[in-house]
């Protein structure tokens, strides 16, 4: 079976530098259909830059990005989102002044694809039903009318993921979703992510939490100083000496 044909995303030779500093140095990887891919690396390794480039926030200096076989290098954020690449942010970016329900409703694909047409939409019943159904999957439907800004941290994370999935994407990027969570919350998050898997073809998750990255993803890739230094099954990768050194440092400090 041709691996490329099964890949949702193929990144080749991606490079990006800021003011002379190499944030990404010719990184190549692919995301396979049906998998949860983990992306790890110490601070400054380039994980966030990678996700920002791939989701269209910055243009790459070099390299190509193919999504579903199609060359999408250089497209803007919103174009990539419409093609089916969704993401969440490290510091949760919900629309805090809108309700939980509205946050999901705003992502409705039909409206976003034709914003002016949506001015004429009068009967929104079907859209509300669909949104509530999605919220139900994430155990948030009871708080539909709450302001998004009043949610607890864990709930806010769930909402952000739910909203990202409302647009029916094929590829979902999660940027440090477990930041600031304790063990129990991280467990809940992991099961939420596993449950999300049925809504989307592939998930890429950037995280620091080693326990989570050992158990959740099918495959793990490690970046260090803008370069890929390891790739494979989580247990294998985490046992590699260069990974241990890069990630934990020689004085054994944990993240």
């Amino acid at each position, binding site marked *: 079976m041709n691996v490329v044909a099964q890949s949702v995303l193929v990144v080749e030779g991606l490079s990006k530098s800021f003011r002379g500093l190499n944030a990404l140095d010719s990184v190549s990887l692919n995301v396979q259909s049906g998998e949860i891919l983990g992306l790890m690396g110490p601070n400054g390794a380039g994980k*966030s830059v990678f996700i*920002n480039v791939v989701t269209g*926030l*910055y243009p790459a200096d070099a390299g190509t990005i193919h999504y579903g076989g199609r060359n999408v290098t250089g497209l803007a954020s919103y174009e990539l989102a419409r093609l089916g690449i969704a993401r969440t*942010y*490290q*510091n949760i*970016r919900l629309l805090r002044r809108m309700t939980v329900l509205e946050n999901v409703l705003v992502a409705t694909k039909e409206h976003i694809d034709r914003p002016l047409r949506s001015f004429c939409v009068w009967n929104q019943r079907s859209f509300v039903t669909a949104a509530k159904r999605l919220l139900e999957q994430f155990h948030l439907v009871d708080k539909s009318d709450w302001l998004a800004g009043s949610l607890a941290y864990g709930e806010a994370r769930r909402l952000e993921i739910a909203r990202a999935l409302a647009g029916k994407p094929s590829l979902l990027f999660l940027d440090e979703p477990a930041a600031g969570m304790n063990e129990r919350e991280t467990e809940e998050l992991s099961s939420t992510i596993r449950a999300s898997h049925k809504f989307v073809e592939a998930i890429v998750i950037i995280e620091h939490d080693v326990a989570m990255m050992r158990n959740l993803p099918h495959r793990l890739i490690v970046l260090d100083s803008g370069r890929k230094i390891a790739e494979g099954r989580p247990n294998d990768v985490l046992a590699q000496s260069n990974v241990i050194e890069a990630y934990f440092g020689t004085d054994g400090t944990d993240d």
Partner: protein
Amino acid sequence: MLVEQIINGVVLGSMYALIAQGYTLIFGVLDKLNFAHGEIFMLGGFVCLASVALGASLPVAILITAIISGLLGLMVEFVGFRKFRSADAHITAALSSFAIGLVLIDLSQKVWGAEPVALTLPGSLQTATITIAGLKIVVLRLAILVISLLLMLVLYLVVLRTGLGRRIRAVAESPAKAALFGINVTRINQQVFVIASVMAGLAGLALAVRTGYSSTDVGFTFGLKALAIMAIGGMGDLRGALLGGLLVGVIEALAFQWGVGQFADVFVWLFMIAILLLRPAGLFGTLVSKEIRA
């Protein structure tokens, strides 16, 4: 003739730069626009005028102008900005400073009238010229240029080399973080306002001395232009305000030289738009999306 006009432009530009630097300093530190700034500039000219009329010599008038401008700055900070500190309050702070400006203009017109008022200085001072490299230069204008550049140099050194400057830069980067480090943000805001207002007041004095009269509408016209200069140079950047001010001064001088003086304003704003198209954050500005930096 052309060279003389360019020199005129540079002198005018140095005054613009003084005003723009104050504006941009306040913007850099408080992240808000102070629309009363132009009126402090305007009042600088009138304070000087009043001091001289009351018998003060020029140096004393300069000192009085500086002091009163500083006090005005403190007042504006207290009335228009103290309560509106949050990041969401940009528009409110700007509008309140606009309202203060409105009041200042009206009160000035009550005292001095709406027509330009003449400033009388010892006769020789205003017309003395010297000849450098074959060009006749008015001493006064040269003095204004030199003193303006000196003031801006002093400001630059203060911001970069002193403890005060370090604290100012800390607040400019993040008031919340600066407060955590024990910096009294309110005090810094006040000091920034004083510095900016003194510069504006002295620029107003310079204008009054150079043109021979003060008028209540200069705050508006100069203040508006200072906004364009800030955008050209990059909001919050002192070098940008200097360079932008000089460029705008020269552009205006050239516009008059080439007979299209009535479009001088339009050229300045078009120039700003052109610069922003090429460099969306101005010459020295950075479109730092703090969000992405997370």
